[in-house]
């Protein structure tokens, strides 16, 4: 079992859907993809609200990468004649997430910040309890979660915030190097001072640490 790699946690979960309901979920994903098109959407509109879920997910800044994969009951790969075909009742929804640290904190944040978004994706799944109140939701995820056998991160010492902070710093620095190259010392010092204010929330200690992580229960 290797759900944790440095600051990252690998969540893998399968839930099951009555194949008729899978169409509902497909529609939800279609709407989500539509909402990502670069067109203006009023915040109060359905599409605007769907877009807001993604804005909120980004702002939560817990997740490096996440995905949802619908696997229909007939879609489990069959690659050889001698492989027995599956006979399943349900379609499946795979959810994988690469997020920072604490399992319960992560699920909790989902439930607090984007309850509607989560419900729209999972309401098609068998016995989904809704994301609030939290305890049945936590139990539901625990029941359908798989332990990861091998987990790799190319930057185990970095949280999502660490990465975003570093990318911001790099961008500001590249710009500052160009802009300040020809400045005389006095002006350089003043410009440098303004530059440090721009990157002041990217200056903390980063990297792997003996961070007190709880193993997911």
């Amino acid at each position: 079992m290797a759900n944790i790699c440095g600051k990252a946690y690998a969540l893998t979960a399968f839930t099951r859907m009555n194949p008729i309901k899978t169409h509902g979920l497909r529609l939800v994903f279609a709407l989500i993809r539509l909402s990502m098109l670069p067109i203006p959407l009023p915040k109060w509109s359905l599409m605007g609200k769907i877009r807001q879920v993604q804005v909120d997910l980004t702002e939560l800044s817990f997740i490096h990468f996440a995905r949802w994969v619908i696997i229909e009951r007939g879609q489990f790969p069959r690659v050889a004649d001698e492989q027995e075909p599956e006979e399943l009742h349900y379609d499946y929804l795979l959810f994988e997430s690469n997020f920072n640290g604490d399992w319960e904190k992560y699920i909790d944040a989902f439930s607090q910040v984007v309850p509607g978004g989560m419900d729209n994706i999972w309401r098609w799944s068998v016995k989904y309890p809704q994301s609030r109140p939290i305890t049945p939701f936590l139990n539901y995820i625990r029941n359908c979660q798989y332990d990861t056998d091998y987990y790799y991160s190319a930057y185990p010492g970095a949280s999502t915030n660490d990465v975003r902070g570093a990318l911001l710093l790099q961008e500001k620095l590249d710009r500052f190097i160009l802009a300040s190259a020809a400045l005389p010392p006095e002006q350089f010092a003043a410009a440098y001072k303004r530059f440090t204010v721009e990157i002041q929330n990217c200056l903390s200690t980063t990297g792997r640490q003996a961070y007190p992580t709880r193993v997911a229960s």
Partner: protein
Amino acid sequence: MANTSDKAYGLTILSPILGGVSADGVPHDRAIRRELIALGADGESPFAQVPTTHFARCVVIDTLPYEGIPAKVDQLKNKYLLFTSNFDGELDDYLELVRTRMGDAVARIWSHCHAFPGVRDRAPFASYMRRCQVETSFFFGAYTKHTLVEVLRALDTQRRMAQFVAEQQGARRAPAALQQAFRELVGELAGAALPRPGTI
């Protein structure tokens, strides 16, 4: 196509594991788990040799969830190896990197799967992986406009810059000396080696 988001690709592979036992008498799913446990971690991971992989995981799916009546039990006829990766660029390029850079590990693991053609030739390997691929319905990434190389570079820069700001702070620092020190930092950054994947 929902496999991609900007520069990032979310690959989902589900490979059916052989039934019965492997050469040394161990069931194939357990043999895979044994291989996975033996893989190196962090910078020693075979994935560290594929410099476009941000995150990757392997999970043996040996059973399906059950929520209680009136739901029905679904029984798998095969076990599956779930392999997912979050990487930069195109699938074909990636599969080729996987085949050539971490072929040994892949061969050891996938040798316990149905119809695995091995890693010797490009075309059969890519076609096998594509047959095992499941289309991602929705893929989300927090910084998909940036490649792994950019992320590693930025993480390294952040450390050096944080150190620099702390060392140079204070109103009493002479502007000329500050500027000189900054130029040295810029030179140092330009010459700095990229941190190896898995080590930062």
